[in-house]
């Protein structure tokens, strides 16, 4: 790649197919936005079916929702919002031409927060769910106290694990991207002229964050635990 990428006097990171750096930056940014549109459709299909089923089997979905651990969900929301902040700070550091150590610091901080999210999710939430037989396909047990709605509670948990699982998968991919960026930052690749990879990856990271901002109320909050008494 490198021999294709470097063209004599061009700035580092410049690709031969573009006319100038500005065009390259715009193309990269538009590319990521288009990719995010794809991602919206990807999650959108799941959200739409979730809402259809939730309307059909409201009681069952509320039963399921009550079994989630809102404390960890809320903590994770805070953790992710924090990681979006550090990501933005990393981009700002490059944009403002700050030292590479500062860029690296914010990137590593973002990774730590991302790891914390996954750790809380896997270790406290999903592990508990497994022990409580709430994972469909892995010894799910319908509890008598769900009564009427019991048959349909597994459906709620199918959605819960599909959606949070897919989200976690995106986090792990983001983790890989952040790792690459950290190495690049360490090698002094970014400066106030060239920081497109950071900016574009930032868009992705914020998107993953936003998906969670939708998932958290949809799965944990509405109806179930915080429903007004008597309102269904």
């Amino acid at each position, binding site marked *: *790649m490198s021999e294709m990428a470097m063209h004599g006097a061009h700035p580092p990171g410049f690709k*031969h*197919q573009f006319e100038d750096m500005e065009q390259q930056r715009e193309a990269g940014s538009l*590319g990521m936005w*288009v990719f995010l549109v*794809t991602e919206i459709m990807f999650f959108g299909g799941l959200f739409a079916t979730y809402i259809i089923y939730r309307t059909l089997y409201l009681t*069952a979905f509320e039963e399921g929702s009550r079994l989630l651990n809102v404390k960890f969900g809320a903590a994770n929301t805070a953790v992710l919002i924090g990681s979006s902040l550090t990501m933005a700070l990393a981009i700002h550091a490059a944009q403002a031409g700050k030292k590479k150590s500062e860029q690296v610091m914010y990137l590593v901080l973002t990774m730590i927060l991302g790891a914390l999210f996954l750790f809380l999710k896997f270790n406290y939430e999903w592990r508990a769910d497994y022990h409580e037989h709430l994972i469909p396909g892995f010894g799910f047990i319908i509890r008598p106290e769900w009564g009427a709605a019991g*048959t349909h509670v597994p459906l709620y948990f199918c959605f819960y694990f599909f959606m949070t699982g897919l989200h976690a998968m995106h986090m792990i991919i983001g983790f890989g991207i952040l790792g690459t960026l950290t190495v690049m930052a360490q090698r002094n690749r970014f400066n106030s002229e060239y920081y497109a990879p950071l900016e574009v990856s930032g868009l992705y990271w914020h998107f993953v964050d936003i998906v969670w901002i939708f998932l958290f109320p949809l799965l944990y909050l509405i109806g179930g635990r915080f429903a007004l008494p008597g309102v269904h």
Partner: protein
Amino acid sequence: MPGQEIPAESRVNYLNASYGVKSWLLTTDHKRIALLYLGSITLMFFVGGFFAVMMRLHLIEPQGALVAPETYNKLFTMHGVIMVFFFLVPSIPATLGNFLVPMMIGARDLAFPRLNLLSWYIYIIGAAFTLYAVISGGVDTGWTFYTPYSSTFSHTSVIPTALGVFITGFSSILTGLNFVVTIHKMRAPGLTWFRLPLFIWAMYATSIIFILGTPVIAITLFLLGLERLLHIGIFDPAIGGDPILFQHMFWFYSHPAVYIMILPGMGVMSELITCFSRKRIFGYTFVAFSSLAIAIISFLVWGHHMFVTGQSIYAGLIFSVLSFLVAIPSAVKVFNWTATLYKGSISYDAPMLYALGFIGLFTMGGLTGLFLASLATDVHLSGTYFIVAHFHYIMVGGAVMAYLGGIHFWWPKITGRMYPDGWARFAALVIFVGFNLTFFPQFVLGYLGMPRRYAVYPGEFQVLNVMSSAGASILGIGYLIPLIYLLWSIRYGPIAGPNPWGAKGLEWETPSPPPTENFEEIPVVTQDAYDYANVGGSRV
């Protein structure tokens, strides 16, 4: 004219710039990637075609002439999966689109060349999974993968196939993304949106469908695979899941996917008709916007695949009216192409014969779609051979005809060589005749009530089935002829020169085959597309 040109061999071009397997497998040149795709989809076309031939041979006799019903079910499933997901969807966009989008807009490459190579590898991995499914015993769900048959009842390799299609979806998404960004950001100076060749408009509309539709089928097949693996999932009636929901999600992509197959063909058509009649296209803006209209409306008509599932009458009415609506832009295109011929200077080179074949077959295919958008007649015709005939007229009569026309048109640009014109015209004729003989009887079979996907059938349907099978053998031969003479031409064909057809468009201003960087200097565009009235031919 040949002879005045420097022989292709002595000039550095994208084909001889470097040698060796590695120089191809690691290339980021859009033209080489186009050829990688061309090779792979041609292979898939003949694999899928082989299954089709087996099916038609089997159906010569009512009790089935060749294989057990289980095998027949696998034949039509693998024919459908391979032809739809691994040939038709990538056909024009990944080969001609990849080759031409940068050249037509005056760019050196697509915006993301490495992503482009990655999408080819993704395609290959997806195809490998699907071919593995074929070898490991095949799959028998039909290409539509309807639940609960696919999720619970089938005993075949559903997961590898669904995974293959799922993976290949990302190849489409990345190609679409690459095209959208390239068309938005990398047009040559002076090349405004309304100076773009209509092929580019078609590619743009197709890319929109790739981007918006493909993720939905990806998630649907992912959920299907998971449900099969874990024996529980959201389409499972046992826990309140709805198998019909799968159809909604499937067709939300797969109906627009039909337009993924035909829109690029329409784009090719506009290029061919204008060049071989030496005329500017009639009604440029109408043709351009009809592509976008089709792309958008195509997302709102999926329910017409489900009129007989018991969906509400009112939903049926809405989907029916929208389905009629999506037919209008297609009709507008056909009228505009016809009008373009008026007072033209029409020549009958091979690509033009394919183009005229396209108009005829696509018109038939489109009009028979009216029978299926009409609720009352759809009740009788859905699930019968009428459907099979209708979509083959669109996808084979339309899309494949246009694909072949496009290959013949740009072959001299791609390879620098001409093919024998007589053979090419002959092949176009054989394909046209073979195609009609194969699929016209199927309209009648469908109206008579013969359901599709039947391994055996009542005796009264035999005559029409035999006619169809006879046509299929002609069609099969028709497809083999171009394979032979095109391969022959790579080595023995006469040198083509940069612009053998006297065509307009930036791609024709480069040498054939073009150099790796396409243009030594990025051209400046001062004219509209298809400005054939401007005598002399050269731009600027």
